[in-house]
């Protein structure tokens, strides 16, 4: 038996070497294909209508925006724009890079910028960009010359460069996609990026190949395959076998399987998602009282949960936006103090506790069920009799966004502009969805001023003040930011998840 296995192994190894030999030089032997396994494909390859950061990561191998963010520092960096300046509070000017060609040969120009921004913001399509740069700003794109554009807004908008660096702001060719202004693109992707579109087999894979005519640094891998493997255990098995090079969404219970694998390792990066419990302060009478909301915060021993439920792979979240984003900061934790919590409840008129309905969605977040049970357990201890309700995701997101949940529910928010304002805007009474708490008075004034402040120092002051206010109001039960866990082959180099969860695959390659 051992001999047969040895022979088979030898044969397999020989076959692999044989397959790789052509076209690979000895000095820098690399695998011609990088395979990344993920739980599901992008909903679409339309440059502007995908939904998740992961889909954005795949699409932005092929497409590019005017700006990007450094994969290590998150600093804004020029991409298809060479420079930009703020002309007035309601006007920004961008100088465009010259000599850039789309995959269809079309020249990148101001016309393409106008076409793309109009498609994102003004068309009837449900673009993700409408969240990143809400049409309420009344933005207009003016073509100054073929390589200069100006954006004007009705309301002062200091965030324009940050918005244009989001992955939902991909530039598309004005002529190549002319007929798709108001229609879905399903069968092609024309961008300026380092990779070009090969195929999208819905629900199975997306394949891209290096763009020989790319204007910037040549990508290190000739071909990248994003392969759907829905089952996490199968993803791990495929990684252990060396069939795939990177696996995304590694569940905590499978971490040891990767850690003990001789040819793979765990890749872990703090997620930008802020996980919280939203409290309906508008329709649940008890939750209108700040003291009740503070009590719910103080009742939960978060460090214990992080240690025991997440194996320490998480960081406490104390403010709404998290400390890593621009103008984000840590206002300090609510202490774990069940005695004080009980006292606060009594002061608020609930000496015998109260009833609370708490909603959770299963299958969307890691260990969602355990999280819900643990939180309910802590609240029970201070006399908050918690009734757990679970819903499947489609119905859950409908109720969550539609402000229909009473009394409390779990959620994780992304940050598309990488600024604390992205989270804080949710507390303005004018915001369209997730309406569970309306800021008023001084807090509202601070948030609104912050939204329109241009001076970086002033922004920082206002941002901190607003986050402090939101924390004192205990608008949510602040929980944690989890680590994003992945498995990578030990031969993989240059793989990175950016701090905003964007998968940076353009510099990734696999040693043969």
């Amino acid at each position: 038996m051992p001999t047969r296995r040895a022979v088979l192994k030898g044969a397999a190894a020989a076959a692999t070497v044989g397959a790789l030999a052509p076209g690979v030089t000895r000095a820098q032997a690399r695998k011609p294909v990088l395979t990344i396994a993920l739980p599901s494909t992008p909903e679409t390859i339309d440059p502007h209508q995908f939904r998740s950061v992961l889909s954005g990561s795949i699409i932005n191998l092929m497409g590019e925006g005017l700006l990007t963010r450094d994969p290590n520092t998150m600093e804004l960096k020029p991409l298809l724009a060479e420079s930009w300046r703020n002309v007035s509070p309601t006007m920004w000017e961008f100088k465009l890079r010259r000599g850039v060609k789309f995959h269809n040969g079309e020249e990148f120009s101001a016309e393409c910028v106008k076409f793309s921004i109009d498609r994102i913001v003004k068309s009837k399509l449900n673009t993700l960009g409408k969240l990143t740069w809400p049409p309420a700003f009344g933005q207009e794109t003016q073509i100054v010359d073929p390589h200069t554009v100006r954006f004007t807004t009705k309301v002062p908008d200091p965030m324009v460069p940050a918005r244009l660096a989001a992955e939902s702001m991909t530039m598309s060719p004005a002529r190549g996609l002319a007929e798709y202004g108001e229609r879905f693109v399903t069968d092609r992707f024309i961008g300026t990026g380092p990779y070009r579109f090969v195929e999208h087999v819905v629900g199975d894979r997306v394949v891209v190949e290096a763009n020989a005519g790319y204007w910037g640094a040549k990508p290190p891998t000739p071909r990248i395959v994003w392969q759907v493997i829905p089952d996490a255990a199968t993803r791990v098995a495929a990684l252990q076998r060396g069939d795939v090079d990177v696996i995304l969404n590694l569940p905590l219970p499978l971490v040891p399987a990767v850690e003990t694998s001789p040819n793979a390792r765990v890749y872990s990066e703090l997620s930008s998602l802020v996980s919280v419990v939203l409290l309906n302060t508008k329709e649940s009478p008890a939750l209108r009282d700040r003291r009740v909301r503070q009590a719910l915060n103080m009742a939960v021993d978060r460090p214990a949960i992080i240690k025991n439920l997440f194996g320490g792979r998480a960081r406490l979240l104390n403010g709404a936006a998290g400390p890593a984003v621009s103008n984000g900061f840590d206002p300090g934790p609510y202490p774990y103090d069940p005695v004080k919590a009980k006292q606060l409840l009594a002061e608020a008129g609930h000496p015998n506790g109260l009833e609370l309905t708490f909603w959770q969605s299963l299958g969307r977040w890691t260990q969602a069920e355990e999280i819900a049970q643990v939180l309910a357990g802590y609240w029970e201890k201070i006399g908050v009799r918690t009734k757990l309700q679970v819903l499947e995701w489609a119905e859950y997101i409908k109720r969550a966004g539609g402000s229909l949940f009473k009394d409390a529910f779990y959620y994780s928010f992304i940050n598309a502009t990488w600024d604390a304002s992205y989270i804080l805007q949710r507390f303005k009474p004018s915001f369209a969805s997730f309406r569970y708490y309306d800021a008023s008075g001084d807090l509202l004034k601070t948030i609104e001023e912050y939204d329109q402040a241009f001076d970086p120092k002033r922004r920082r002051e206002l941002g901190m003040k607003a986050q402090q206010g939101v924390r004192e109001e205990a608008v949510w039960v602040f929980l944690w930011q989890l680590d994003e866990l992945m498995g990578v082959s030990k031969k993989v180099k240059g793989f990175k998840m950016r701090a905003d969860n964007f998968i940076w695959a353009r510099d990734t390659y696999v040693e043969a």
Partner: protein
Amino acid sequence: MAFGVSLAVFALVHLSGDPVLLMVPTDAPPEVVAETRRALGFDRPLPEQFARWIARAVQGDLGVSLRNHRPVAGLIAERMPATVELTVAALVIAVLVAVPAGIVSAVNRGTWIDSLTMVGAVAGQALPVFWLALLLIAFFGVHLRWLPVYGHGTLAHLVLPAVSLSTIVLGRLARLVRSSMLEVLGQDYVRTARAKGLAEPRVLAIHALRNAAIPVVTVLGLQFAQLLGGAVVTETIFAWPGVGRLVVEAIFNRDFPIVQGVVLVVSLIFVVVNLLVDVAYVVIDPRIRVARA
């Protein structure tokens, strides 16, 4: 039948939730939601929506996916061959294992061979497919490295999913072959065949098995539906690009046209398979044709 199933599924998927809110950004204002609903025709009364859908479906137009805007007929055509390949392979494996096992068991009735085979059959029936699949992956995929653990393409890719899926019908089939054979082996014509001095293998294969085959074929036809259902789990675990996974993702995304389209096509396949079973009766047992005439 396909019409009835379509109607039931249409009603169920529309009861299950609103697809529009999954399609628009979570922060979309109500006007955008209403506009999207109107554009998709979801603001019309349900009977009208169903009538429109069925009118198009009979012309081969199953609509367009809500999520990725591709024609549903095309998506199904892309995925169906993989599912058929998997279920047929599973059925072949099940027959190849269950029929000999059932015969051996029947011939050696009451012996340890019989007991062992039937314990195996019951165990196979009781084993959850997903669990067996994970064991197969761990052993043949990761430990021995003999077989790939995901995807579609070569014969090697087919082995683990087909073996896992076959266990859904294998145990029941083996037990049915056994009891059916036992019944036939007690018949007069089998005794006659043996008395004529025919060799035992010939008696079993020609005289006994052919007569025992009718209930087995009937059950195979019905089990085909179970295989298609089991394919949903198997396809998910082995990342097999078939309609099972397509429809599961579609259900979670409330992608109604895909769900309706797949159900229609699958129920048509089921009808066709059972028609073939009826035809098979005639081939196996000419008396059936005589009786009907």
